[in-house]
């Protein structure tokens, strides 16, 4: 509860900083925030699109959070997500299977590709002593160029040159029911997968011995070793599982939204935003859920903020950065919240 309060304060201060930056630029922050939040929350279509925008954030947020609980910092969600997308596209394009099975295998392939990439960072940490922050940054760029190379060599749509072919209909995560509920927004089973991932995450960490082992290794590697939990294996496992969640994020984008994989110049933002989601959400499943929806709302609403109030999209990135800054230095006002509670 106190963690939640602290996040709320960070969020409020972040919005305040954003307002100051907008004022400096000569914009009306009240009008901007109204456009940002109001239009999205009052239209079913926009609400659906916002949930679609949140989908990969929930998954990458879970990815970063899981690693964090095991004492690791996963900056690699972006690369894991990217390779997950490539793997999903590959299965979706090159294989022919009946509907549900095809999509299931494509998602599994994405999870495996992400897991492999995450586990690689885990291996480098556990057995070669490479800090995961550095290795995941390098692996991110490697994933981008490797993925682009694979698309170029095997999956390219010859008439487009800059993206893969379209995945088979049997491999998509589209849901006509969900879409029609939200005014034909591009919302499908990807969102359901993201919610499922949060449940899996919560159960795994809070109720399963594996989760206990991971958390123990994160809290105190020495004590964990004493309790018979091999720390090396925990590191590889944690990074592998984290990578799997991020990989599925790539699948939800490819199979659920775009139906192709583009050759990208940069890594997907959702990979990095996942760090923001995990931090703001305090690495708990309900927290990730709320933070994921909030950042999805910010990212999606930025468009109408620009359209209605003329404020550049980037104002939202500044708000996110400010929120994160306050989360990062939360112990400064955590004490303040604590003191107030004692006094009250």
């Amino acid at each position, binding site marked *: 509860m106190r963690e939640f309060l602290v996040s709320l304060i960070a969020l409020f201060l972040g919005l305040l900083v954003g307002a100051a*930056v907008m004022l*400096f*630029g*000569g914009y009306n922050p009240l009008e901007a925030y109204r456009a940002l939040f109001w239009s999205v929350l009052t239209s079913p279509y926009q609400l659906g699109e916002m949930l679609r925008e949140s989908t990969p954030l929930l998954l990458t947020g879970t990815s970063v959070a899981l690693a964090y609980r095991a004492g690791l*910092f996963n*900056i690699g969600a972006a690369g894991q997500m990217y390779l997950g997308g490539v793997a999903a596209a590959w299965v979706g394009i090159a294989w022919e299977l009946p509907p549900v099975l095809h999509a299931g295998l494509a998602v599994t392939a994405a999870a495996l590709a992400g897991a492999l990439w995450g586990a690689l960072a885990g291996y*480098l940490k556990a057995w*070669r*002593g*490479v*800090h995961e*922050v*550095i*290795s995941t*940054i*390098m*692996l991110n*760029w*490697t994933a*981008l*160029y*490797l993925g*682009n*190379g694979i698309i*170029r*060599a095997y999956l390219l749509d010859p008439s487009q040159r800059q993206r893969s072919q379209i995945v088979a209909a049997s491999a998509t995560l589209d849901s006509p029911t969900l879409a029609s509920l939200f005014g034909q927004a591009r919302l499908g089973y990807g969102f359901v997968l993201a919610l499922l991932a949060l449940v899996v995450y919560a159960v795994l960490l809070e109720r399963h011995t594996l989760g206990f082992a991971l958390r123990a290794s994160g809290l105190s590697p020495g004590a964990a070793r004493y309790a018979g939990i091999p720390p090396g294996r925990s590191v590889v496992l944690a990074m592998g599982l984290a990578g799997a969640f991020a990989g599925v994020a790539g699948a939800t984008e490819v199979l659920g939204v775009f139906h192709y994989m583009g050759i990208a*110049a*940069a890594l997907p933002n959702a990979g*990095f935003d996942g*760090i*923001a989601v995990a*931090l703001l959400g305090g690495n708990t499943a309900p927290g990730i859920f709320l933070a994921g929806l909030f950042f999805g709302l910010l990212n999606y609403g930025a468009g109408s903020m620009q359209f209605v109030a003329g404020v*550049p999209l*980037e*104002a*939202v*990135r*500044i708000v*996110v*950065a*400010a929120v*994160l*800054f306050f*989360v*990062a*230095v939360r*112990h*400064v006002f955590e004490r303040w919240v604590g003191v107030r509670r004692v006094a009250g």
Partner: protein
Amino acid sequence: MFEALGQFLAITTVYATPLIWASLGGVFSERSGVVGLALEGYMIFGAFAAASSAVVLEASGWGAWGAWPAFFLGGVAGMLLALLHAYASVSLRADQVVSGFVVNFLAFGLSVYLVKVFFHGAGQTDTLRQAVFGRWGIPLLERIPVLGPSVFTTYPSTYLAFLAVLVAYLLLWHTPFGLHLRAAGENAGAAATAGLPVRRIRYVGVLVSGFLAGLGGATVVLTTTGNFSHATISGQGFIALAAMIFGKWHPVGAFLASLFFGIGTGLKNLIQLTPWARDIPLDAILFFPYVLTLLVLAGFVGRAEAPRALGQAYDPEVR
């Protein structure tokens, strides 16, 4: 053949220069014990400030000389951003990785936002016509075949970067200041016990890194792109971080690694220019530096050792 080689060398040094600046910055930050993850952000901010100020200077009639104040302001802008990182990670003892990450995030959003505010909604600054660096030839040396027209006829920012490597080396390894800085990064507690102001030293390390990386960002604008947009700096800060690690946290090592990583970009251009090399996949060349850095880190190509107190907040109350 020689013409191609000369061209290759020229491209390599031009692309290596921003990396040299930023990786030197990384050395100062990490040797003082603060993670250099924010190099990318400093470069973005330096590039943004250099481009914006050069546009203004050009409009007020500075001509080619406008490049110099713009270059310097790029460094100052990087330093301003570094102040935030230092405040969060040294004074408030925030997680340095998170803080560095936030600084990168902020630099990207704020710079493009400000460009749109200053340039009437356009996503990039005006393109500079005069206020950019011209190539300077060094007398006598410029007459050496191949090397003369490629390496010894180049931008002043490149010569300054070479000089900065030497200065950084002397400063870090042959002055008391350097000893103190490295002590703060090796064992903050011991350094404090010896009477060193660890936090102040770390502030200096981070601010210097912001200034140098800011100059690196400015270099990109004033020698290569001529303007600033969201894509002007895309990953050079992280390559510089890799170069610093590859160079084992040493100025000369970082310099050599930056040159080496510059070759990657040089090769890319060479391949696009030479017909027989077009079959080499571009993607493979692009990821080469990163894979190499991983191999170095993993100890397959010589062991790299980070400063021991790197990433640890220094809290005087906890010994």
